[in-house]
């Protein structure tokens, strides 16, 4: 719990570019919320980590030439700042029925509850992922990785601050209540769970963590990109800056999985083995298990985009609240009233495409944008395997595989896109998704943490280089 002596001078110690010190209403709101936030961090932040001094970057401005400052900090003392990209006085609403109007600096009354819901849903994912990952510090494969997960955690905390700032600043009493509720929900809690399903799934091991940061944080990126197009300018500017931090989270995920692949391939090549049992006997993660984890995290994340056909998504767009990925770079009328977009449905034992009004298919479109980027990352992972001279290739399962939301929900689709019977699925799904034995094997590799500077667990290769040009044997975390 937070003691009086732990209180932070929020005016001096919260880096910000929103003139916090001059806004007394906001100041009082934050005075009330900040101790609750710190209590949440002590309760639900990384386990047993509070005394550690961690080599973290802290956002200090929004300038491209060095918005981040690196140094040792105890995580509860991290300077969770509030940053918005600088305001462009000429910015307009760029899509929907308000296209061409000046962007809104205050919340339009008619969209108040919708915008609040959008912000709360985004904000809820931030503390959720910290809660999901809180035990992983106890089994880290290196100091480098321990520092990286802590960096991800504090920045997810900062993203919560970003959303709470909007709730406090623009939504009055309702916003303050929502900000409190963001600290009350708990990932996986039966009575008061986080809002989105994927954020109630456990992140039980480091392979799951790396997959999560590659797949699920990337969903976060695409949602932020869509919100960064919003006609509500403070939301757009907040999300724009959050994206800069999200880039590092995806770096952690992509390189984390790549290093596991690299280590497995090294062991396979050195020992001339390819049977998964032989690979496991060497204490590394076989490529087949990596494929299963990939299938799980990819499919669960696809659900986060929502229903394939959605009137909510259409309304968000038409009203200028949430745009498409890279909206302003797209060459069309930005109204979409006469356009169509293909979605898929299961008819009997076939999957067929059909066209729907593009406005109602915006979730599906964002999901497709996401899939294209995922394919690019997958090709980089396969490059690692190819360079090792192995013929195995990781693949993305069909879009309908293991889906619980949208047109594929309730259907059993194989990774190669065949509609299956329930019986066939029951017989075979352990070939494609991690079974209890797979989780048990992966977790058996991760008992205890590796904390000697420069050392790495057997199941993961060292990174090519350290953080902020520090050497690999740098003391990224001091335990004191």
């Amino acid at each position, binding site marked *: 719990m937070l003691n009086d002596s732990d209180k932070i001078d929020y005016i001096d110690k919260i880096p910000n570019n929103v003139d916090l010190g001059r806004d007394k209403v906001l100041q009082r709101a934050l005075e009330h919320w900040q101790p609750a936030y710190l209590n949440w961090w002590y309760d639900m932040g990384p386990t047993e980590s509070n005394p550690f001094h961690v080599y973290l970057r802290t956002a200090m401005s*929004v300038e*491209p*030439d*060095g*918005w*981040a400052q690196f140094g040792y900090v105890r995580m509860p003392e991290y300077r969770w700042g509030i940053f918005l990209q600088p305001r462009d006085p000429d910015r307009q609403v760029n899509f929907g029925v308000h296209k061409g109007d000046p962007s809104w600096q205050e919340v339009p009354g008619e969209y108040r509850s919708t915008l609040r819901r959008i912000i709360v849903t985004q904000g809820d994912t931030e503390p959720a992922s910290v809660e999901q990952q809180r035990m992983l510090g106890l089994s880290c494969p290196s100091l480098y990785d321990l520092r990286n997960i802590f960096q991800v955690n504090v920045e997810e905390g900062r993203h919560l601050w970003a959303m709470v700032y909007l709730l406090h600043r623009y939504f009055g009493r309702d916003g303050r209540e929502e900000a409190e509720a963001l600290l009350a929900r708990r990932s996986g809690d039966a009575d008061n769970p986080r809002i989105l399903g994927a954020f109630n799934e456990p992140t039980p091991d480091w392979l799951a963590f790396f997959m999560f940061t590659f797949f699920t944080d990337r969903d976060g*990126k695409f949602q932020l990109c869509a919100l960064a197009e919003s006609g509500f300018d403070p939301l757009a500017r907040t999300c724009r*800056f959050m*994206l*800069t*931090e999200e*880039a*590092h989270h*995806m*770096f952690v995920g*992509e*390189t984390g999985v*790549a290093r596991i692949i690299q280590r497995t391939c090294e062991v396979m090549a050195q020992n001339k083995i390819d049977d998964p049992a032989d690979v496991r006997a060497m204490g590394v993660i076989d490529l087949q298990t990596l494929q299963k984890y990939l299938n799980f995290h990819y499919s669960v994340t696809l659900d986060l985009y929502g229903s394939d056909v959605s009137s909510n998504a259409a309304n968000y767009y038409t009203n200028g609240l949430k745009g498409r990925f890279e909206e302003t*770079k797209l060459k069309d009328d930005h109204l979409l009233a006469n356009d169509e977009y293909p979605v898929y449905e299961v008819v009997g034992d076939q999957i067929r495409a059909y066209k729907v009004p593009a406005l109602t298919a915006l979730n599906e479109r964002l999901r497709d944008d996401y899939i294209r*980027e995922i394919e*690019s990352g997958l090709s*980089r992972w396969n*490059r690692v395997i190819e360079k090792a001279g192995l013929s195995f290739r990781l693949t993305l399962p069909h879009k309908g595989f293991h889906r619980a939301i949208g047109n594929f929900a309730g259907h059993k689709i194989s990774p190669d896109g065949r509609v299956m019977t329930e019986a066939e699925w029951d017989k075979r799904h352990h070939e494609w998704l991690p079974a209890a034995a797979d989780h048990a094997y992966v977790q058996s590799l991760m008992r205890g943490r590796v904390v000697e500077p420069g050392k790495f667990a057997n199941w993961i290769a060292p*990174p*090519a*280089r*350290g*953080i*902020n*040009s520090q050497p690999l044997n740098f003391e990224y975390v001091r335990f004191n």
Partner: protein
Amino acid sequence: MPKVIYVSAEGEKKEVETPVGTTVMSAALKNGIDGIVAECGGVCMCSTCHVFVDEKFFDKLPPASDTEEAVLEISAEERQPTSRLSCQIKMTDDLDGLIVRLPAKQR
């Protein structure tokens, strides 16, 4: 004022006057060069401002830091010997006429 010449993957050239001290990434964003994304905001944490520097200029650049080298490993289009992150290239008078080729994809 020194100039940077951006060459798109399709071969289209665009010349941009770039003040000394400005990064090649920043000048691209300000001048609407589509092939530079700069997802991380220019702090060498992603690889979406990847460029291939013309060989005539490559040796004039200060060497890449360890961080830049690490981030180049995850570029969408595989890195080449003259790959750099444009957020790490600051304009100087000596670099006037700098030619950078943009990869076909940044993500």
